[in-house]
């Protein structure tokens, strides 16, 4: 899984039927020190997150498992909201 911040949403009307009702969010990947890394990614939301929230997401086929038994075509899905990060040497 990876850290990220929700920075936007995507609206799409014509899409795969299994994507109907799913929220498409734009996420900026982050390092553990919360600096940006890489480019933004569009992903689904399995937990209900809000704009600007610090989240972690899952990559690959596993990212469609929260929606079982529906077979949702996604490659990245938000699976949790981050409350806190404890880094070595920072306590």
């Amino acid at each position: 899984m990876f850290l990220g911040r929700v920075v936007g949403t995507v609206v799409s009307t014509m899409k795969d039927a299994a994507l109907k009702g799913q929220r498409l969010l734009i996420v900026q990947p982050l390092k553990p020190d919360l600096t940006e890394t890489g480019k933004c990614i569009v992903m689904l939301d399995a937990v209900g997150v809000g704009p600007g929230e610090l989240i972690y997401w899952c990559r690959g086929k596993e990212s469609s498992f929260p929606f079982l038994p529906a077979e949702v075509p996604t490659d990245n899905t938000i699976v949790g909201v981050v409350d806190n990060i404890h880094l070595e040497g920072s306590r």
Partner: protein
Amino acid sequence: MLIAHVIGELISTHKHESHAGRKALIVQPLDLDGSKRGDAVIAFDAVDAGVGDRVLLVTEGFSAMTSVGRPESPIDMAVVGVIDRIDLDLLARPPASRK
């Protein structure tokens, strides 16, 4: 599998139900010379590893979710071992790739 260093822990209350009761670690993948290999990632703990440990990291879903005992759940990385020692035969590799 990758060699990685556990650098922290992640706390989350609002998350997928399959993640409940599992410790989420922040791990930094390493090269053989101990330098960073890309950005740190979040992995679930299958072996009771902790901050400061050098560990084995799987980065593929099936191995990750079975090792933490949560099949068919959105888990793509897991810590599956704590490394005691690494023995390298440096002379077995050409100088250019000794990293």
